């Protein structure tokens, strides 16, 4: 899948591949031996956060699991 930053797609794919493996083989199995994808994530984030700023995508200050407060049924 493409990244929102045109130049970030390769970095994203590399990271995704590393993450998917770690997630299925380590994280879900309770293995806490450390995340091997940290460096790839940093590089990918550097690229994608720059793209988000350039495109003015309004993500700043949006609280985690944010907007669903005080809703009926919530």
């Amino acid at each position: 899948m493409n990244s929102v930053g045109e130049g970030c797609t390769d970095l994203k794919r590399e990271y995704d591949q590393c993450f998917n493996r770690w997630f299925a083989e380590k994280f879900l199995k309770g293995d806490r031996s450390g995340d091997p994808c940290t460096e790839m994530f940093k590089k990918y984030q550097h690229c994608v956060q720059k793209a988000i700023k350039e495109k003015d995508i309004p993500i700043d200050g949006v609280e985690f699991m944010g907007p669903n407060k005080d809703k009926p049924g919530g």
Partner: protein
Amino acid sequence: MHCHLVVNVALVVVCRKWTSCRNKCDSQRGICQGNKDNCFSFIGTMVKYFACAGLLKSPWDQVCAAFWQRYPNPYSNHVLTEDIIFREVTPGNCLISRRLLTKTNRAPRWMEKYLPVTMARHAYIIEDSIVDPQTRNMTTLTWNISHARLMSVEERCEYCINPDNASWTEIKREAWISSNLYGLSRAVQEFGLARFKTSVTKTMKGFEYVLAKMQGEAPLRTLTEQATDRARETALAAKEKAKDLASQAKKKQQFV
């Protein structure tokens, strides 16, 4: 890169006692509508509420792994880009992530005349998630950050092990649809709910496709299959267009 997220989550998220969507919906004030596929919607003046239970006949672990690999799939042509923009393992060993999605933003024609001509043809969506491998629970919250005044759709999903069959996964889905478009909010909400229901079907089919692929049931797609998928998408698009026209006619009667 500095991240402005305020992280405020309970470290252990347990599947709440929710025996059926019906109970959930009945606790709302107002009219509760049920239909044959175990989905319920709540008709309010300010917000539409929708609850639905779904089932995936795959183990929870695989469903969670598929959750991160579900784009692209033959039912996700409306998803243009996908990025992880925040990710952390909490001290309680939960994985918290934020995904940013760009989706095409097709409004029905009757609605388009109320929208600015310059309005972007795509919408940004945020999807936050918490995966707790200890309790085998994944909770996601998805909402649009573009055009939110016009129509806001918030969706909350909980993925748990099915209590009757431990190798299946249950999805409890809730959605809140609201609009601040003066005089048209109810019509927009109805459109939003209809589109949301279509997208739930697509999401589930996409999930099933990705799960089958991961389990090696569909390793390579033949050209015939790809052509069938394209035909299906075209048919879906035509169907939606027809629905838009029908609803356009209906709204004209209603509002003029």
